[in-house]
């Protein structure tokens, strides 16, 4: 039997979020998604959460499991007492559903539209190429944003690891040195150097994107190309 404590909230209907306890006749070892589906289908059909691809690709199912940000389709229930909350740092739409999209969408609408065949540029080392390239597997789940102290939902500066990982995709494709330096400047403007090196983003990323590694690589490039001072920690990596 699992003892599941969830946050319920319908903005507009409830004055404030409240807690509800579900007694669920299942054992540990199931995925969070299995638990969510069970509750909705058997105990309360009005219970809201977000699920889509079920296999760690759509990036839609982020939530807090016992205080830790996880993908519901990826992480397992390992304790009999389970606490579920909406992903921290984002506006709640209903129950466990948060509005990650408008943040991610805002980030994307900042980036240029690039067309034409990519040329392998030499502004990056081979290792940096490879690191930035694999960061292209980011699923936009915003879990890294959720744990990062730079992230503020209504921040016009869109600071945060998911943003830098996406920006790296553009550096990879920079055709001219000018473009490349412009991306580095964008990173600075968007607060990359304020990173406190807590590494929480990399620790929690469900896709091994290693956003912190990407950040230190960009920081190094900023230091070398723009001559801007960068914290020792960022350079040390």
């Amino acid at each position, binding site marked *: 039997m699992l003892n599941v404590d969830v946050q319920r909230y*319908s903005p507009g209907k409830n004055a404030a979020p409240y807690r509800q306890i579900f007694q669920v006749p*299942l054992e540990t*070892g*199931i*995925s*969070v*998604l*299995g*638990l*969510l*589906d*069970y509750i*909705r*289908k058997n105990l309360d*059909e*009005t219970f*809201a959460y*977000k*699920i*889509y*691809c*079920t*296999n*760690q*690709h*759509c990036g*839609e199912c982020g939530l807090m499991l016992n205080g830790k940000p996880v993908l519901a*389709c*990826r*992480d*397992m229930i390992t304790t009999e007492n389970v606490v579920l909350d909406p992903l921290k740092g984002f506006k709640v*739409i*209903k*129950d466990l*559903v948060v*509005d990650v*999209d408008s943040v991610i*969408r805002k980030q*994307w*609408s900042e*980036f240029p*539209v*690039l*067309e*034409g*065949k*990519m040329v*392998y540029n030499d502004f990056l080392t*081979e290792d940096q*190429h490879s690191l930035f*390239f*694999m960061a*292209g*597997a*980011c*699923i936009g789940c915003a879990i890294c944003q959720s744990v990062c102290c730079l992230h503020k939902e209504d921040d016009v500066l869109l600071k945060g690891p998911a943003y830098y990982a996406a920006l790296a*995709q553009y550096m*990879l*494709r920079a055709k001219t040195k000018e473009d490349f330096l412009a991306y580095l400047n964008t990173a600075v403007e968007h607060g990359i150097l304020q990173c406190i090196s807590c590494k929480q983003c990399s620790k929690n990323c469900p896709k*091994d994107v290693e956003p912190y590694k990407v950040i230190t690589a960009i920081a190094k490039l900023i230091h070398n190309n723009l001559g801007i001072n960068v914290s020792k920690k960022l350079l040390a990596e």
Partner: protein
Amino acid sequence: MYEKVDVLVIGGGIAGAIAALEVSKSYSVMMISKDRVMGGASIQASGGMAIPGIAGEDLSVFVEDTLKGGEYINDRSLVKIFAEEGASYITYLEELGMVFDQDKEGKYRIYKRTEGHSAMRNYNDRRGCHEVGRVFKEKLVKSNVKLMEHTMVYDMKSVDGRIAACSAYSLKDGKIIHIAPKAVIMASGGYGRIYSVSDMSTGLTGECHGMALDCGAELMDMEMVQFIPLAFPFPEGMRGAFIGMCSIHGPDVRLYNSLGERFMERYQPDRKEYATRDQVARAIFTEIRDGRGTERGGVIVDTTNNDKSLLPRYKASTAAVYSALARVFGEKAANWEEPFEAAPSQHFCMGGIKIDGDCRTACKNLFAAGEITGGIHGANRLGGNALTEVTVFGKLAGKSVCKEVAEADWAKESDLEQYFAEQDAMVKDLFVKKGGVSGTQIKKALGEIMWECGGIVRNQEMIEKGLAQLAELKKEAETMHAEEGDIWNYSLVEALEVKHMLKVSEAVLLSASMRKESRGSHYREDYPAKDEAYMSNMVIVQKEGKLVCEKRPIIL
């Protein structure tokens, strides 16, 4: 209140994205998607893409491979277009700014011959499909396409054989939206989630197939559903999730049943575990069904005989699968040091809406592209062919619509108003509890019926049992309800899905019943051999509200 648009695109996968971008160059477009854009099976794909002709072979070789894989019931006119247009696939994506998985010299890192292909023509991307997704997302966000994410189209109407109106439910703001388009492109993917065990996104339930029938379009070869041999048999929440084929788990994978028997020796003495996807899926299914599965409903996958030095390479190409194995079965299972358990799962839909070479359907101004269509893959699909197909036909659909929408017009005001009022009333009525069951409960029951009666191994008795059970569910659905609520109401979503899922499931069973032979992914244990008399297509049409299955000659 309703909104007028030139073109409505349904679906936020690759086919829908390309179509919408293409149309947006000349017309107003709204794109509606149940998930966020980019999504669908497109974002789930492992990133294998077949490129016709890239190995220097003649396009006819690719055509022949595809036809052979499809057991020659493919629509040949579509396969020809597929091969010709697919040949420029890489250049097309490169022009759009995609970064391919290449080394400094431009050599593809993972490039292989996938089963069924007679040439080395499969490009593989270590990032899965996320880079393809990025390319289109980047453009969609900046385009003048009106994006409606987390919105589900649930009904569509044609007037005088021409597309007229559609209604949708937006989860995020809880509103019902009415749209009057001049033309519609359906790019809403497959119908895999009519099965209780599937690795497709939860929203791929096939409503649009049902709506297409309502509007006078035809479905073809709906019985052709692909199953992958290996998926998680447990735990709750992961059942059906993709583990893949033996080939992605090393060169020496062995499958055992609970008696310790290497059963593939019995089914496919030559290629054993490396026989085609459907042969292996069938064998595993039969072992489990006949009581030779493990306690938890799988068979044993032994990867320990693989040459361990190959592990890093295999892990790199499907990292997500290996990390999921580690979470469920432990690190050793993901390192080829211990066996794990697996069972088959639904994976892809070859059947779908019947289109012509311009993506037109039998309903005027209704177009379809991508996995939602039928005919291209025939009775079975080759690895990597889907991503190429959805790109080619998404683009084609966009182009075709542009040619025709200029002469199209909106439906009459009075027809529209009346239809939308009916749609509002229908949703309201779902919130009234009439003592019956909920849509969610019906959906669950339906999934199990389809898995049992229309799944991997079929026979007449089971198909008829399935049809009878569907008829009962249909009756129950007349009084089903959904929980009341506007924002993010999955109960409403599932009730709206069910209406069409019942129809689509019936289409699958009717076609499966009529095809009294085994061909490709359609296996009938009562007719285990291929029969040349069935070298034809099963076409479903709706006549006076009833589905009729017609056996038609293949399209040359």
